């Protein structure tokens, strides 16, 4: 068993498969290029709740319910729930976990929580300890903004390097057996600190971590950048992605057209987001919508997904500390039989309404 791990990478022999995926995004993200692909787009940031924190929690619950339902499971059939988010004491995850009667593993890895949760989940599933594991993350612009920066209505200007925290949540259900794309390997990253102290420039803080993890993946799995249909980094944003390209070239790896960054892609340029999106929800929603759906239909065969996170604390930053970055990588492969068609928008909407009803019922029963 120990031989399966090479340096930082674990290659899974038993092919933990993605049997359910669900993404839910905020209205601003819904107007972006991926708006059509998300399973559900919220009409407003409150999602029918009184506070933004509650809205984020509901969003996460909705995503977990949606993914389990898509996997044709009941929430009780899930054996373990792995969740992470950005708020202090990961309150979104922990409070959402109350709704589910399963073992709960709360993780914090800033914006890279999606890859970390899937990495841990896949390890559990591969080892045979648990059969169905749900991995979820969420982030909300309004809650994150309040915690890390300024009050929402404060009339200040954002620095040109700042990024927009995405409102969104994604959930992936992993299982042994069944059909669909599988997690081939996971590479757990190292915390890298290149001495960046600017809280408004997280792309620069995360890029070295992304580089380090990406090189580990290439070395450990003996692959080259060209071997992947898509190399996707989490939320480096425009500046971070440019820095990563430079850093990789310095180390002798040239990333081609197959390289993309979620933060750069999730919004249009005219949406006033400066360097692009950030937050757990940014890469989690794109991974659980675009990437997994394309893997299911076979349009993408092999994807390298590197979620990046800035392990930022306002306390430490105010004391003059620099920001460590982290990146975890997943290699996800498609496997036949491929699905012939993708779900239409109308079907998605019906599904979402159904989930909403279920959630309501479930929450009432749970109390």
């Amino acid at each position: 068993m120990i031989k399966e791990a090479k340096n930082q990478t674990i290659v899974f022999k038993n092919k933990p498969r993605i049997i359910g995926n669900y993404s839910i995004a905020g209205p601003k993200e819904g107007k972006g290029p991926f708006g059509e692909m998300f399973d559900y787009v919220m009409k407003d940031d409150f999602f029918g709740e009184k506070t933004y924190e509650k809205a984020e929690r509901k969003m996460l619950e909705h995503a977990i319910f949606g993914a389990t339902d898509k996997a044709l499971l009941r929430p009780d059939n899930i054996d373990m729930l792995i969740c992470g988010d950005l708020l202090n004491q990961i309150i979104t995850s922990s409070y959402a976990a109350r709704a589910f009667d399963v073992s709960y593993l709360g993780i914090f890895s800033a914006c890279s929580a999606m890859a970390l949760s899937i990495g841990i989940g896949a390890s559990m599933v591969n080892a045979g300890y648990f059969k169905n594991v749900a991995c979820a993350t969420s982030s909300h612009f309004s809650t994150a903004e309040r915690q890390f920066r300024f009050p929402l209505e404060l009339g200040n200007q954002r620095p040109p390097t700042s990024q927009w925290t995405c409102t969104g949540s994604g959930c992936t259900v992993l299982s042994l057996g069944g059909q669909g794309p599988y997690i081939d390997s996971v590479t757990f990253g190292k915390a890298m600190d290149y001495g960046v102290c600017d809280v408004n420039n997280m792309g620069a803080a995360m890029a070295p971590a992304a580089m380090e993890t990406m090189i580990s993946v290439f070395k450990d799995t003996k692959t080259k950048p060209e071997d992947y249909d898509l190399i996707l980094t989490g939320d480096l944003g425009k500046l971070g992605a440019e820095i990563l390209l430079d850093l990789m070239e310095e180390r002798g790896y040239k990333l081609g057209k197959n390289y993309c960054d979620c933060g750069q892609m999730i919004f249009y340029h005219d949406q006033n987001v400066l360097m692009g999106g950030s937050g757990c929800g940014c890469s989690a929603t794109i991974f659980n919508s675009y990437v997994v759906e394309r893997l299911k239909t076979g349009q993408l065969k092999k994807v390298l997904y590197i979620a990046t996170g800035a392990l930022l604390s306002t306390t430490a930053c105010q004391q003059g500390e620099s920001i460590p970055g982290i990146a975890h990588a997943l290699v996800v492969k498609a496997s036949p039989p491929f699905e012939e068609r993708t779900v239409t928008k109308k079907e998605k909407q019906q599904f979402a309404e159904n989930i909403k009803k279920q959630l309501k019922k479930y929450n009432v029963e749970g109390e």
Partner: protein
Amino acid sequence: MNYKDRNKKYNEYVKQKIPKTRSWPTLFNAFWVGGVICMIGQGIGDGIRAIWPDLSGSMVSAYISIILIFIASLLTGIGVYDRIGAFAGAGSIVPITGFSNSITSPAMDYKNEGIIFGLCVKMFSIAGPVIVIGVLASAVVGLIYLFI
């Protein structure tokens, strides 16, 4: 590997990568929005003087401040002031309206954490330093005034 050198080199590299803020358009916007706010204040003052000619000058300026603070709070409450601020920057921060916005916005954000520990405590999280430094500076200036 020497981490200090590596970090220094990286930070210098990042610095030259960062897109620069275009100063002239931002300065221009700050200038004219700030000017307009001051003009509104002057207009209010002139209006008050026209209605109540007997009011003293200090009373008039107090009324101007109160009315401007009220307008800025209202605009913050209905979600307009942050847009003005994003456009004008210092132009809408430096006048008294910016001070009003910096108190109203945390109050709005933290009201769901309770009246005392939420609203009252967090209300001055942005404006607090301004008050502290303002009071301190006035004391220093007062001392100087005393001796000359």
